């Protein structure tokens, strides 16, 4: 926080230049030109933002109260779509899948990313190449990640996972991983975690590196072993970074679509459909626009619940 911020104007300006407005006005500039300029510069932003965020949000809420099937006449059903959702076993299944997927990806990717970040802090230079190898998946899209991992879970001899199981004598566990409901969900979590680990690694590593050296040196002088130092000093002190990582991973896996679409397409038999995918399927392939919109609003409510602290923080900080 810059300390000179609030009063810089008064203290830094010894006199008011004459001829540019009334001499003792409280704020800089004339009121009219300033907000005209503001709106001039803001117009493209407000326009594009309104088209692609504000209008769609309002419209999705509105559509969710209507029954719209394909090109047929829409009819108003009030909360009917929502009532139908919560008696639809498929949708209830997607809620459960979404919960497992979101928690699974967050726990796996944040714990791996954070642990690696803590380890790397002991030898930042020697581990930089390995850190980059893990971090690189961050630059690979979910769609490509999904495609790559199809190859690993492939049934028969061509799949790497089955190949490894056979090679180490566990051949009886080899299976078509994407063909079973539970194994497909696990495959989805593994793939998403592989591609999501970059952000937790990045944020936790920044947080660990920000720990004052003196604290770590003191612990080292007292003879603390690396694992003790990690657990008692570095974990609590890098918590802020890890907390942001947890939030962002929760947020992105809750909204997941791309990776589900490419890796399992919701299958087998809709067993790996998340809410974000269910909404796509209902509205864009079955053309139940109202029903899909209602599912989207449920997803939005979930997202807003998870992000309440972040939204509160940003709103407070919006000056």
């Amino acid at each position: 926080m810059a300390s000179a911020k609030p009063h810089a104007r008064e203290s830094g300006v010894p006199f008011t230049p004459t001829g540019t407005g009334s001499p003792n006005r409280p704020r800089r500039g004339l009121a009219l030109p300033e907000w005209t300029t503001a709106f001039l510069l803001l117009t493209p932003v407000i326009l594009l933002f309104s088209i692609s965020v504000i209008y769609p949000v309002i419209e999705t809420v509105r559509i969710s109260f209507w029954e719209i099937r394909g090109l047929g006449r829409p009819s108003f059903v009030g909360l009917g779509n929502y009532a139908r959702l919560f008696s639809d076993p498929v949708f209830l299944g997607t809620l459960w899948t979404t919960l497992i997927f979101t928690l699974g990806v967050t726990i796996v990717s944040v714990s791996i990313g954070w642990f690696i970040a803590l380890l790397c802090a002991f030898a930042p230079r020697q581990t930089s190449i390995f850190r980059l190898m893990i971090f690189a998946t961050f630059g690979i899209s979910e769609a490509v990640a999904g495609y790559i991992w199809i190859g690993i879970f492939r049934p028969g001899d061509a799949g790497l996972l089955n190949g490894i199981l056979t090679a180490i004598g566990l051949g009886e566990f080899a299976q078509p991983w994407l063909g079973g409901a539970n194994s497909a969900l696990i495959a989805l979590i593994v793939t998403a975690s592989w591609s999501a680990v970059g952000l937790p690694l990045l944020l936790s590593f920044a947080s660990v590196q920000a720990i004052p050296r003196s604290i770590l040196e003191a612990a080292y002088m007292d003879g603390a072993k690396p694992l003790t130092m990690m657990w008692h000093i570095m974990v609590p002190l890098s918590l802020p970074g890890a907390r942001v990582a947890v939030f962002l991973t929760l947020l992105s896996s809750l909204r997941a679509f791309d990776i589900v679409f490419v890796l399992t397409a919701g299958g087998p038999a809709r067993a790996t459909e998340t809410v974000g995918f269910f909404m796509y399927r209902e509205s864009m392939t079955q053309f139940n626009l109202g029903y899909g919109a209602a599912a989207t609003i449920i997803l939005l409510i979930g997202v807003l619940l998870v992000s309440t602290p972040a939204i509160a923080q940003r709103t407070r900080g919006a000056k």
Partner: protein
Amino acid sequence: MVGRAPIWIIFVVGIVGCLWIIPIIGIVATSLQTTDSIARGWWHFGENEFSLQAWYTVWQTYPLAGSLWVSIKITLAATALTMVTAPAAAYVFHYLRFPMRRLWLIIIINAFVLPQQVVIIPLFQLWREVGLLDNMAAVVIPFVGLSYAWAVFLIKSFLEDFPKELIEAARIDGCGPIRTFTQVVLPNLISPIAACGILQFLWCWNTLLLPMLFLRSDISLTVLLARIAGTYDPNLDQQAVAAIVTALIPLAIFLLFQKQFAAGNRVSSGGKE
């Protein structure tokens, strides 16, 4: 850091690092082998035959070059628009006073939590009505509109540390708000604008949902790959080439600009300390 790094730490990180790139090695190896060899498993390096065949034939089998061009056009357009308009918005929100300023600011910077799924039904209907489906603009507009949520926040966070004295000095010298922006603020915003550009480039190139729904004939690389992956196409070697081509440009950008990417991500996520 402190003292000598224990060797086991480097060892553990090294093992995880190697595990992490096995899938990438797999896809590269697949693209370089014959289909018979792939069926046996790409990791049998001793027995498998290598060939560059897939890299030659894939351009005829899949519309790879066309999609590459679509991806480049869409991504560059969306990235340029964000890089030009978001800094102005951040400047306006930070330094100028106008009605409903705080309300707009709160709405824009909190929109980063919105799932993309929220925009697709209304925009699909809107684009269909105005005939924008299958047009580049149908994708570029939401790409840019959605990016403001984090881009404005990122640049505005940077402006919070910007010396007020400079703005003040410019005003005393007779600069209006626009000249202050273009001549005083903008030259100092290079690094956050670069960070915005890199984040936006990667996101636009890599995302699937919006281009998949709004583009039909001229599809981007990511959409092409998703389509190929969903079919029972036996040409695994050519598919692998398509995947590599899709991943190559964003990965190169990512590796080249890691620092800016990391900084941008930390700030736009609110994780800067």
